[in-house]
């Protein structure tokens, strides 16, 4: 930072005011759609800050951060634009409070309640409405300082914020998990039933910030990468073993509700990995994934049928191979005529197929066989066990889904390193050139499509057994979109990315059912932010990250804020 004093007039006030007003709009939006009051019931740190307040705090911090990036100022006055923008954003909230006291806006905005005003003024009513301006200015200044800091000090701050957020959100679950173990006392000390305790917050921050800084400064990653392969295995295998053990113990440690959620997550991991072959490797945007999911689900439901629609009384294990097989046959039948279509048009065509299958399944035409909207009930569980058995409840589905996901990951990994995977990637990159190099486009695409369809069928079959029934209304376009989003958010073609994507997009919303009204709002916001700041996905493959950022730099360097890409 150079020491030249900037003059007051040098600040681009227009831009600062604009960012401040946008910040105010975002903060008011958070209040009026009800996020602030509804989430206020859930503390992040008990007796200190609630989730609702956190959302406003984050909005104000972001205002300062964006201001610092927009009005690129150096020198002693550099926090001023951030503070002003933050104050403007805060003033928006003040205005909201005053307006609410003067005229009743509640008829239009249901959430503009005294409760909301209480939160914004810390209970002091209209007399305390100015507090928002002060807090806005402070947070705006803090945000702009944060944007200006060198990476070495910004990293621990980011870890700090993320630790508190994650800790607060998952505190209840962790507490439940610990109460049944000898660590119960520790669990009560660190976690309240909702949110962290103050002690918990301090411990979590020290532990995580310390660990991440230690990890960084000891250069563990570089050291491991610098080792001989044999030594690397000494590090990676035990880590893998610990991870595998944790994955296996998870449903028992976290209780029946979370077990249900992670069974669903595991199912989506499986389907994400399946689509990862079609979309991630071969680049075929398939929005009709749910069609093959439906084929698999109905196949299992019919073949294992204990209900009136059952056509054979097979066990789950005998039916599942047929679910996969029929889905693959369907994939081939649907795929052959449409795989000549490219890109966006293929997406539309597959979208159509998904809808056709959905409508067919619910139609009167097929209802004598598929039950129409009433569906097929009483799909048996794979293994019949006593309710007290460790495989009871959703756990056995979880284990089956995990095992299948591992199998698919293995298949995808082996194919990726083979002639077939290379052909898929080459088609994704440039299908004309790939064909000119001797790659048969029809054969190669069909294989990717059919394999993806087979894995969707597997997912559908397991789903039917997890839920114990299948209805035409389960075959929603949203299933396809979820799976596509998992692959894109995780990182195209990346196997750990699919796992992370499913955790993030399926697991987190399921865990916060009480806020399910806002599910799609967060879903949309998360996707937009992802595409803006990390378009290559959370866990991109080796080359993808650099490629995406190189391309966007060529398009316009100033529109993209460089995301950390060292984790390749």
């Amino acid at each position, binding site marked *: 930072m150079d020491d030249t004093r900037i003059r007051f007039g040098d600040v681009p006030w227009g831009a600062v005011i604009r960012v401040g007003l946008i910040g105010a709009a975002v903060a008011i939006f958070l209040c009026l759609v009800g996020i602030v009051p509804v989430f206020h019931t859930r503390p992040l740190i008990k007796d200190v800050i609630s989730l609702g307040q956190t959302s406003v705090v984050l909005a104000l911090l972001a205002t300062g951060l964006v201001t610092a990036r927009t009005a690129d100022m150096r020198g002693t006055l550099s926090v001023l634009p951030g503070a002003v923008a933050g104050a403007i954003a805060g003033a928006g909230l003040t205005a909201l409070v005053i307006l609410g006291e003067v005229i009743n806006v509640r008829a239009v905005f249901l959430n503009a309640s005294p409760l909301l005003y209480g939160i914004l003024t810390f209970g002091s009513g209209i007399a305390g409405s100015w507090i928002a301006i002060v807090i806005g200015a402070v947070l705006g200044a803090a945000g702009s300082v944060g944007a200006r800091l060198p990476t070495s000090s910004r990293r621990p701050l980011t870890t700090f914020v993320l630790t508190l957020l994650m800790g607060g959100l998952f505190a209840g679950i962790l507490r439940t998990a610990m109460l049944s173990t000898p660590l119960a006392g520790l669990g009560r000390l660190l976690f309240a039933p909702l949110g962290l305790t103050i002690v918990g917050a301090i411990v979590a921050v020290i532990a995580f910030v310390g660990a991440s800084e230690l990890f960084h400064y000891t250069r563990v990653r570089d050291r491991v990468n610098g080792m001989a392969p044999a030594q690397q295995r000494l590090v990676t295998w035990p880590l893998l073993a610990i991870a595998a053990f944790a994955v296996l113990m998870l449903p028992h440690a976290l209780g029946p509700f979370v077990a249900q959620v992670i069974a669903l997550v595991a199912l989506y991991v499986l389907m994400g990995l399946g689509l990862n072959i079609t979309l991630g490797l071969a680049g075929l945007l398939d929005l009709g994934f749910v069609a093959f999911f439906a084929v698999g689900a109905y196949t299992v439901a019919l073949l294992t049928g204990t209900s009136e629609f059952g056509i054979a009384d097979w066990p789950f294990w005998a039916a599942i191979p047929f679910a996969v097989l029929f889905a693959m046959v369907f994939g081939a039948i649907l795929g052959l005529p449409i795989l000549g279509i490219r890109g966006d048009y293929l997406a539309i065509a597959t979208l159509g197929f998904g809808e056709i299958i959905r409508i067919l399944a619910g139609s009167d035409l097929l209802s004598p066989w598929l039950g129409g909207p009433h569906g097929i009930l009483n799909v048996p569980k794979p293994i019949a066990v006593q309710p007290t058995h460790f495989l009871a409840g959703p756990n056995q589905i979880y284990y089956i889904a995990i095992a299948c996901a591992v199998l698919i990951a293995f298949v995808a990994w082996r*194919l990726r390193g083979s*002639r*077939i*995977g290379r052909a898929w*990637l080459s088609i994704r*990159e440039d299908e004309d*050139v*790939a064909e000119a*190099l001797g790659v*048969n486009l029809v054969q190669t695409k069909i294989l990717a499509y059919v394999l993806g369809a087979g894995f969707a069928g597997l997912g559908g079959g397991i789903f039917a057994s997890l839920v114990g029934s299948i209805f035409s209304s389960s075959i929603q376009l949203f299933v396809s979109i979820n799976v596509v989003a998992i692959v894109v958010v995780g990182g195209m073609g990346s196997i750990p990315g699919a796992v992370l994507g499913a955790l993030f997009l399926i697991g987190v919303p399921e865990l916060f059912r009480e806020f399910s009204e806002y599910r799609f709002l967060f879903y949309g916001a998360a996707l937009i932010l992802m595409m803006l700041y990390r378009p290559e996905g959370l866990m991109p493959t080796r080359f993808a990250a650099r490629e995406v950022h190189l391309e966007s730099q060529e398009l316009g360097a100033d529109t993209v804020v460089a995301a950390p890409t060292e984790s390749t």
Partner: protein
Amino acid sequence: MPQLVAKGVTKRFGGLVAVRDLDLEIEPSSIVSVIGPNGAGKTTLFNCIAGWYKIDDGKIEFEGQAIDKLRRDQISRLGIARTYQNIRLFAGMSAIENVLVGQHHFLKTGWVGAVLRTPAVRVEEEKAHEEALRLLQFVGIRGHGRSQASELPYGDQRRLEIARALSTQPRLLLLDEPTAGMNPAETRKMTEFIRRLRDELGITILLIEHEMRVVMDISERITVLDYGEKIAEGTPREIQTNPRVIEAYLGRGAAQAGTTVSDATNEAAASEA
């Protein structure tokens, strides 16, 4: 007997005739250049030979077999490979993977074999990698195999594109402006390299090139196109003094003044610089 025979080839785009009634014969293991002003139909001709465009009229035969109705992958398998005017590597893949894609149809691994990684598959993969490394060595970029293709320096990208084309084991190689964007030293090296392709591997080279020094230096025969028609054909010496060619490049006055093609294009280059 000529290796490639084109007879009466015509390609229309709507009302525009990009290539008109073109005849072309190329002897095995020769180096032939196609030259002509911008928009003369040179790249269109390449696209017709390599199966990117379906021709509207005429026929193209390669080693006695009609290829004008075949798909690109079938033509590739018969032994025709190409490079592109704007480099078209698989940018997100490593250099060696780019070369390995070209071996696709020589390998037999099916998806079950690939998943199980049977001993036969392993042997095949190892051989393919060795071959790819050999090709990288041949074009002079060994050691960059693991780099991302789009991160290689420009000249190396051109070389990688040739290595990828060679991996399909072609007997005819179509090079679309291989020295475009290169400085004189790089251009000289590329020219030498193209000659080596023919001398050491016996590959027939069909070349689109704007740099007249390269064309005159290595071509055995030259075909000149203008407005989609062949206006001249012959040895470099014949072409240099052909009045129709000079007219196409510089206009009628220059043809009467007795300039040669090399002078003409060099002047054009100088005025551009």
